[in-house]
């Protein structure tokens, strides 16, 4: 039931693969890190940068919630508030959520999970990191110089006429997009070309499938975002009026362009999270996923059908009724794929051999919140209901259930799940379980009231609001601060364990997936010897010894 059970099986994997080399963490000095081509080191560098962005975006959120404590001014004026929610959106979406799981855990784990020594284009990978840093610097620079108050959606014609410093911000987003495309190309090429002998398509771990599906979106949707925000930037600087009705333009067209990226972007954020969950559930239930195909193909389904649903953000924007209807039904298809995944996860628990560790507790939170978010997603995709809910707190709550309840919870789950592999230590299980519970409670407290606020008619992006909404806002603010502190505590637990945690074995969770075949932390070239696989990643019917024997034939 609890963690100590693992102590007894400590040394077997290590004996099977004796660590003959230093780990990837050792040596090289500062330049060895900054100039590295090692996907694991690049992943760790992304970890640092992305966490910093998370803290930044999170503190914006806490300030916003503080302001909403009272119906009128609490700590800031309307202009500051409008800037702050814009920054919160921009930082969280582009600088935290999009790169978070793919660039940290995807980078670190994906090559190992396909049995490769590195990604296909290691230099491109490093370039992706520095391009990301440069883009973030430009965005943050633009924010420091005065920022922008358009909201992260940059709707025209407001964004074309607002007197703020828009160009550096959108240009920075464009640059960050380039980094995303680099990463996506790298992942797709690696999955196609670098799988080790024996890892055929249906033997890939499910996390690889979801990162692969994510990369398709990264490569094919991001350029459209780059284009549309640059066009807005150009309009802002040169007043071309591309989307400005004063010169015959159509503001709704910008929304088409914007959501063609930004709806699939939601799947960029949630698909990797689903991949993490698809790894955690079989590992802790110690059994094969109830249906491998269902999870793998629904990931591809989400990625591709996700491209066809962008119009459901525009039901009341003045889109034609026929187009609305088409987008409405296409949106329902995506929900089906997510439902398939959810059922499969739950079915995997059935008659398993379940050990209850922090990642599984996070999975629990994820399951509830993601389903709630997903089902309210179906609700807001129902057109007549969306008319009432559109641009209210209901929508805010819905996408935070997916983005925070889904992606951030899965991010924390992944941080705990792969922690032993990345750093060779175990975190404190007790604090971990406590934090997972606190994160869940804080989250529900923050966002459940927001559904009710939305029902009551509270529009989003409101600095001041009718006083009858106040007590729900107070609840949400309290929850937000609880959520903030519990996330900090969870991260603190991981940081403290870097130094004080017990040493981890190669396979502390008794998993069968490929990344647990290497020592913890892995050597620079991932595998002590080139693996040749004669088994799948979820073969729990094999014993530990067989598992090793079927990956390293002698």
């Amino acid at each position, binding site marked *: 039931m609890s963690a100590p059970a693992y102590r007894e099986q400590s040394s077997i994997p290590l004996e099977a693969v004796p660590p003959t080399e230093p780990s990837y963490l050792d040596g090289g000095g500062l330049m060895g890190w900054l100039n590295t081509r090692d996907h694991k080191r690049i992943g760790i560098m992304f970890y640092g940068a992305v966490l910093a962005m998370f803290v930044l975006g999170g503190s914006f959120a806490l300030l916003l919630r503080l302001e909403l404590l009272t119906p009128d001014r609490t700590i800031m004026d309307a202009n500051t508030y409008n800037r702050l929610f814009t920054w919160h959106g921009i930082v969280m979406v582009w600088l935290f959520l999009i790169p978070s799981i793919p660039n940290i855990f995807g980078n670190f784990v994906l090559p190992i999970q396909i049995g490769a020594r590195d990604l296909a284009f290691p230099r*491109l990978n490093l370039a992706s990191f520095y391009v990301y840093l440069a883009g973030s610097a430009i965005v943050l620079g633009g924010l420091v110089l005065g920022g922008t108050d358009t909201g992260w959606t940059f709707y025209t014609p407001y964004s074309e006429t607002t007197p703020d410093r828009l160009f550096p911000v959108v240009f920075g987003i464009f640059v960050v997009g380039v980094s995303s495309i680099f990463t996506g190309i790298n992942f797709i*090429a690696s999955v196609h070309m670098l799988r080790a002998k024996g890892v055929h398509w249906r033997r890939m771990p499910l996390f690889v499938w979801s990162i692969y599906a994510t990369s398709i979106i990264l490569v094919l949707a991001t350029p459209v975002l780059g284009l549309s925000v640059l066009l807005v930037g150009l309009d802002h600087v040169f007043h071309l009026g591309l989307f400005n009705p004063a010169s015959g333009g159509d503001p709704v067209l910008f929304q088409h362009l914007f959501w063609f990226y930004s709806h699939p972007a939601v799947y960029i954020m949630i698909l990797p999270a689903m991949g993490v969950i698809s790894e955690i559930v079989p590992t802790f239930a110690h059994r094969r996923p109830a249906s491998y195909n269902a999870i793998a193909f629904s990931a591809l389904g989400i990625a591709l059908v996700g491209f066809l649903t962008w119009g459901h953000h525009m039901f009341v924007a003045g889109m034609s009724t026929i187009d609305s209807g088409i987008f409405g039904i296409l949106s329902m298809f995506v929900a089906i794929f997510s439902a398939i995944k959810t059922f499969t996860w739950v079915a995997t628990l059935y008659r398993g051999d379940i050990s209850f560790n922090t990642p599984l507790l996070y999975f629990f939170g994820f399951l509830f919140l993601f389903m709630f978010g997903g089902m309210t997603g179906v609700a807001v995709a129902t057109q007549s209901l969306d008319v009432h809910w559109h641009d209210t707190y209901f929508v805010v709550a819905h996408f935070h259930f997916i983005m925070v309840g889904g992606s951030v919870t899965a991010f924390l789950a992944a941080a705990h799940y792969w922690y032993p592999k990345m750093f060779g230590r175990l975190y404190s299980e007790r604090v971990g379980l406590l934090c997972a519970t606190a994160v869940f409670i804080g989250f529900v407290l923050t966002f459940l009231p927001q559904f009710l606020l939305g029902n009551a008619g509270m529009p989003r992006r409101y600095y001041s609001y009718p006083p009858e909404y106040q007590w729900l806002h107070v609840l949400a603010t309290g929850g937000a601060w609880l959520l903030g502190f519990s996330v900090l505590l969870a991260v603190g637990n991981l940081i403290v364990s870097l130094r004080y945690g017990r040493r981890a074995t190669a396979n502390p969770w008794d998993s069968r997936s490929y990344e647990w075949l290497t020592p913890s932390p892995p050597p620079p070239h991932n595998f002590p010897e080139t693996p040749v696989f004669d088994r799948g990643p979820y073969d729990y019917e094999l014993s530990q010894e067989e598992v090793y024997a079927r990956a390293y034939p002698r």
Partner: protein
Amino acid sequence: MPAPILGEQYASLDRQAVTLRFGMWLFLASELLLFSGLFVLYAAYRSMYRHDFVEAVHSNTMAYGTANTYVLLTSSFTVALAVFNIRRGALRAAMWLVLASAALGVTFLAIKAVEYGVHIREGALPGPYYHFADAATLGGNRFYTLYWVTTGAHALHVTGGIGVLLWTAWHVPRGRYTAGYHPRFENATLYWHFVDVMWLFIWPIYYLV
């Protein structure tokens, strides 16, 4: 002649070459979606201003655009021949063919510059600067604004492509490519072809129909 470096993650040079080309195709797919946004705008505005757009197309400088089509098609041909030659190991021929393609690219830009000059003189400028007498409508304004943005983006890509071609040609005599292993050479040509393909769609919608 230095031997090509095999990355530790690859089983063979062939595998590495295929992967590099595959990466390039992925990048091209990404670029295609970038241009698609501009085509979307064209399609949408054309459906809003049908008559204005037809009128504006006929007012456009068709001779320049058509000349440029032939220039780009020819450069595509020469750069394809360059690949043919490097596969045979005829390095010098390959280099000269690449340089010829780059020269054709410069020709394209020169014609484009002259054409832009015509537009500027006629007042067919984007957005608020538009005062073109032959298509003095809001739709005409839309058409030429999109025209400038689209061909401008394309011209930027052509400029980048010329840079890549020159860089590639510079490396040919330095023994970077061999008959057996030249994925980066092929990637440079792929990029150039892509620029050509985009023009194949820009040309009819902005100059012909």
